[in-house]
C-alpha cells in the first residue's frame, strides 16, 4: 500500500489545526496569567484568612439576654438559640422559596459553649417567647423583671444588651461594675457624658466589653486594611458611604404587637431617664424614630458605615463634623431625620502618598443617607492611585492619573476601567483583572462568605470572638476604644444636625470644643432643639 500526498493531506490534515488551536489556547492563558501575577506581585495584597479563635472550653458561659426584640432574637440565634416561632416561619419561607437556607444555616452553625439562662424584657410576650423556646428540662430560663436583678443575681456571667439606645450605657455600666461581661448593640451610648462614663467603667472592670459591630468579622474588611496599608490606593482624600432604604421596615416602622398594652409592657422601665410621656405603643415598638430613646440615622446606620471604615483605616474621631438633612420622606411624627448628609473631616489623616512629600494630607468621610430611595450606592474609597469599592467583596480600579501605576498604565498592562484586584472570600484564589462573569457573580451575591466551605453569619463570629475572649483572654475587635470612637463620632453628627453648626473635637484633651451656652447632652436628647431653645428664650 502506498500513501500519496493527497492521502496524507486527507488523513492528517486535522492535526495541524489541532496543534494550532492548542498552541493558541495555551499561550493566551499562560500570558494572561503571567500579566495578572505581575500585577498581583506588585500589589502584594494578602487576602485575609478566616479569623481563628482559641477553643471556648470549660463550663458553658451563662448568658442573660436583656432586650428580646428583633435584634435580641437575632443575637440569640448567633448564640445557637432560635425561637420556635422563627423556625416555623423559616420552614414556611423555605416552602415558598427553596433557596431560603436560613434554617439550614442556623442548624449547621457551630455550637458555642454557652447557656442562655435568663431573659429580661419588659414586654411579657417577648419574655415568654424566650422562656417557652429556650427552656429545657435541665435549664429553665429565668425571667428577670429588671436588668439590675439579672446582673446582681450571680447566675449570669455575661449579658447581651439589645435595648433602645438610652438604656445601652446604664446597663453596660452596671454590668461592668459587677464584672459581668457585656455585648452591647450599637451605638454604644446615647449621650456624650455616658460615653466617657462607660469608657471609665470598661477600663476599671475585669469583664470583657464588646460592641456589636459584627462587620469587623467580615473577611473583605481585613483584606481592605491590607490593601490600604500597602499603599495600593495612594492617598485617599474622599470616602463616600451611603444608606439607601425605601421601605417601612427600613424607616423603623416596625410592627406593633396586638397584645401590647400597659398591662403587658412595663412602661416606666421603658422610659427610664427619657421624658415621662403616657403609654405609647408607637414609641415602644418604633423607638428609633425619637431622640429620647434612639438616635436615628446617625446612631443606627452611620455608626455601621463609620465603624466599617474605622476598622479598615483606623482613622479615629474626626476633627470636625458638619451635617444637614431633614424629615423629608416619613413625616409621621418622628423627630429624627430621614435624609441625612454628614461630612467628617480628618485634616491630618493620610493613607500614604505616591507623590512629593507634603502634597497630600487630609481626608473627608462623606456619609449620605435617605430612607426614601433604595438605589444601591456602594461604599467607595477614592485615592490618588486607585479606587476601592468595599462591600462583602471588594474591587480595586487603578486611577487614570495615578503616579504609582503610571508605567503600567502607559504600557497598557493596567486599564482604568478594569479592576486590578478583586477579593471574594468564597473564591479559592484572589482574582486580579476579574472577568465579567466573576464580577457578575460577585455583585449578585452568589458567593457567600465561606469558612471551610460553610456559609457563616458574621454576628456569630463576632459573638464567638467575645466568648473566646471571656474564656481565654485576648482582645475583641470592637472593644471600648473602638466603641468610644464610634459613639463620639455619631454624637457629633447628631449634634451638628440639631444645632446646624460645625462640631469640633480636640484630640489632645479628648473633648468636644465647647460652644457657649450649649449643653451637648441636652441638645442630643431634645426632641426639637431649635423649638425648645426658642421657647426657653421666650420664657
Amino acid at each position, binding site marked *: 500500500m502506498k500513501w500519496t500526498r493527497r492521502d496524507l493531506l*486527507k*488523513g492528517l490534515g*486535522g492535526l495541524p489545526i489541532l496543534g494550532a*488551536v492548542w498552541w493558541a*489556547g*495555551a499561550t493566551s492563558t*499562560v500570558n494572561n496569567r503571567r500579566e495578572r501575577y505581575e500585577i498581583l506581585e506588585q500589589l502584594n495584597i494578602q487576602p485575609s484568612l478566616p479569623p481563628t479563635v482559641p477553643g471556648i472550653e470549660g463550663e458553658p458561659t451563662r448568658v442573660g439576654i436583656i432586650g428580646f426584640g428583633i435584634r435580641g432574637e437575632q443575637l440569640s440565634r448567633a448564640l445557637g438559640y432560635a425561637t420556635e416561632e422563627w423556625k416555623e416561619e423559616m420552614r414556611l419561607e423555605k416552602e415558598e422559596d427553596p433557596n431560603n437556607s436560613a434554617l439550614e444555616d442556623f442548624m449547621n452553625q457551630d455550637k458555642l459553649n454557652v447557656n442562655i439562662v435568663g431573659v429580661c424584657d419588659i414586654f411579657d410576650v417577648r419574655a415568654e417567647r424566650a422562656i417557652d423556646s429556650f427552656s429545657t428540662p435541665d435549664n429553665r430560663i429565668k425571667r428577670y423583671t429588671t436588668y439590675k436583678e439579672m446582673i446582681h443575681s450571680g447566675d449570669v456571667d455575661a449579658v447581651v444588651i439589645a435595648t433602645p439606645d438610652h438604656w445601652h450605657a446604664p446597663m453596660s455600666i452596671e454590668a461592668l461594675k459587677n464584672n459581668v461581661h457585656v455585648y452591647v448593640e450599637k451605638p454604644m451610648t446615647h449621650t456624650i457624658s455616658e460615653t466617657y462614663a462607660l469608657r471609665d467603667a470598661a477600663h476599671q472592670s475585669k469583664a470583657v466589653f464588646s460592641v456589636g459591630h459584627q462587620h469587623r468579622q467580615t473577611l473583605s474588611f481585613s483584606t481592605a486594611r491590607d490593601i490600604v496599608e500597602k499603599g495600593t490606593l495612594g492617598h485617599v482624600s474622599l470616602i463616600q458611604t451611603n444608606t439607601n432604604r425605601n421601605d417601612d421596615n427600613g424607616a423603623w416602622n416596625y410592627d406593633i404587637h396586638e397584645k401590647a398594652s400597659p398591662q403587658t409592657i412595663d412602661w416606666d422601665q421603658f422610659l427610664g431617664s427619657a421624658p415621662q410621656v403616657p403609654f405609647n405603643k408607637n414609641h415602644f415598638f418604633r423607638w428609633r424614630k425619637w431622640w429620647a430613646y434612639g438616635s436615628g440615622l446617625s446612631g443606627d446606620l452611620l455608626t455601621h458605615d463609620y465603624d466599617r471604615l474605622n476598622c479598615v483605616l483606623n482613622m479615629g474621631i474626626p476633627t470636625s463634623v458638619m451635617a444637614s438633612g431633614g424629615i423629608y420622606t416619613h413625616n409621621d411624627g418622628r423627630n429624627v431625620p430621614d435624609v441625612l448628609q454628614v461630612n467628617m473631616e480628618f485634616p491630618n489623616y493620610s493613607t500614604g502618598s505616591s507623590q512629593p512629600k507634603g502634597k497630600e494630607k487630609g481626608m473627608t468621610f462623606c456619609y449620605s443617607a435617605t430612607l426614601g430611595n433604595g438605589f444601591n450606592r456602594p461604599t467607595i474609597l477614592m485615592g490618588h492611585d486607585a479606587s476601592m469599592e468595599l462591600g462583602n467583596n471588594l474591587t480595586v480600579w487603578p486611577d487614570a492619573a495615578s503616579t504609582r501605576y503610571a508605567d503600567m498604565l502607559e504600557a497598557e498592562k493596567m486599564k482604568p476601567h478594569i479592576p486590578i484586584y478583586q477579593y471574594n472570600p468564597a473564591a*479559592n484564589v484572589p482574582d486580579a483583572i476579574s472577568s465579567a462573569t466573576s464580577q457578575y457573580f460577585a455583585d449578585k451575591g*452568589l458567593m457567600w462568605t465561606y469558612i471551610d*466551605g460553610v456559609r457563616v453569619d458574621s454576628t456569630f463570629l463576632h459573638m464567638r470572638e467575645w466568648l473566646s475572649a471571656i474564656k481565654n483572654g485576648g482582645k475583641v475587635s470592637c472593644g471600648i476604644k473602638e466603641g468610644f470612637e464610634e459613639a463620639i463620632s455619631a454624637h457629633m453628627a447628631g449634634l451638628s444636625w440639631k444645632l446646624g453648626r460645625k462640631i469640633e473635637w480636640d484630640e489632645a484633651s479628648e473633648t468636644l470644643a465647647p460652644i457657649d451656652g450649649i449643653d451637648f447632652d441636652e441638645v442630643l436628647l431634645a426632641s426639637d432643639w431649635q423649638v425648645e431653645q426658642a421657647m426657653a428664650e421666650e420664657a
Partner: protein
Amino acid sequence: MTNEINGKKVSATIVVLRILIGWHFLYEGVVKMYNPEWTSFGYLASAQGPLKPIFTTLTAEAVIGWVDTLNMVALLLVGITLISGFLERMGSLVGIGLLSLYYLAHPSLPWLQQLNVEGNYWLVNKNLIELVVCVLLYYYPTGHIFGLTYFTRKKELTKI
C-alpha cells in the same frame, strides 16, 4: 451526477462543521487546562431551572474538583476526536452529553432571568444548536473523508 456533486459538497461542509465544533471544544478545554484557578463553581452555583438542586450538589467541596477535571477532560476529548477525525462518533456523544448539561444548567426558559448571555433567547440557545450539530456529526461521520479514519478506510478499500 448532480446528486453526487451535491453529496460531496454536503460532506465537505459537514467536515468543516466538525472541525469548527472540535475547535470550539478544544480551545475551551485547553484554556481550562492551562489555568489551574479555573473552576465551574460559579456556573454551577448560579444554575437555574428544574435541575438546579442537582447542579448545586455538584458545587460541594468534595465534588467540585472532580467535576472540574471531568469537564476539562471531556472538552479536550471532544475537541481532539472531532478535529482529528478519529473516534469522532464517541466524541460526538460526549459532546452531546456536555452540551445537555450546559443547556440544563442555564436553560433559556422565558420565566428565568438569563445570566451571562450575549444575546436574546427563547427556549433555543447556542448550546442547544451546537448539541444538535453534534447529533448530526454522530449520524454523519466524516473522518474517513478528512481525518485519521481515512487511513483505516483506505486500508480496507485496498484489501478489496
